């Protein structure tokens, strides 16, 4: 999940997808810390939001059949434009507007060759590592509750 990426431009969509997904999972504190430690702050112009709205979450009938509307989730999004002209987007579950704004800024910084290594090493890599550790912990705790059946004496056959 956290393999280093080549810093050639433009990045492939799959890499951007991964970046945006990690930014959506980053906590407001993680984003704030990476922003505070950023040596040269870019000029940031808000384009849309940050604003909170709803996304209708769909499921599938029977798990794999036709889609149906399960219910909504709160989502906060932002789009910003850096002084350099790069646009950044952020969409994340929840209502945290500061997080969405910082997420959009870091999406834009990640797209620029000079700042991508910083975003990768100071933000995306630690977030990916945290998620991996959390998933690992949950999987291990869950695995401890797995039932090991053993057969009782059955009587004569």
């Amino acid at each position: 999940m956290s393999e280093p990426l080549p810093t050639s431009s433009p990045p492939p969509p799959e890499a951007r997808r991964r970046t945006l997904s990690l930014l959506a999972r980053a906590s407001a504190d993680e984003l704030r810390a990476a922003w505070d430690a950023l040596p040269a702050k870019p000029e940031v112009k808000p384009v849309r939001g940050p604003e909170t709205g709803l996304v209708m979450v769909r499921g599938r009938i029977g798990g794999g059949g036709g889609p149906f509307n399960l219910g909504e989730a709160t989502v906060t999004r932002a789009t910003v434009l850096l002084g350099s002209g790069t646009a950044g987007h952020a969409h994340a579950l929840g209502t945290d507007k500061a997080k969405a704004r910082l997420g959009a800024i870091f999406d834009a910084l990640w797209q620029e060759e000079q700042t991508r290594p910083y975003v990768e090493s100071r933000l995306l890599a630690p977030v990916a590592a945290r998620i991996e550790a959390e998933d690992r912990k949950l999987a291990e705790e869950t695995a401890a509750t797995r039932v090991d059946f053993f057969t009782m004496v059955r009587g004569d056959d």
Partner: protein
Amino acid sequence: MNTNLQALSGGFAQPVLNAQAVFRLLMDGMSRPGTIQTTAVETGQPAPLGQAAAAVALTLCDADTPVWLQSSLAKSAVGEWIAFHTGAAMVQEKAEAKFAFLQASAGVCSFDLFASGTQEYPDRSATVVIEVSAFGEGRSFTLAGPGIRDQSKVSIAGLPAMFDEIWRNNRTLFPRGVDVILTAGASLLCLPRTTKIA
């Protein structure tokens, strides 16, 4: 990446207050058909969309209102701009659209293929926004119907002569039919389906 920066520009500076102000204009315009309403709200729309038409799109369109664009608008950044700022999807089929944006200078098509609602739900119909050259000059129209005391006169420049027949056909569907918003720059004028053009 493939994001068009033109599509990302503009939008309402204050989404709630600006949308409320434009909604008020539209409500007044629909309840007093033929009156000219002018918006002062900045929209930063890409050409060739007009300011009032852009304000209508930002105020009324959302993810639940598919939008159809006449080809002259569809080939510009207008579609992406509306999609980005409102979440509305652009559709090819007129029947699927809740809103349609046209330029009278590129010709006004028949309304037959737009959704005109059903007898039970006449509200499930399209609203057609047509950009004309100007209000207060050009051909004179005499309007009558709900919201108009006796008759009112309005001059509209740039609306083709065939519009009169299109509108008569629309009137025959009542209570079904489309509603029209004419726009000219920052101004707009509403023609709900109840309005007769004498």
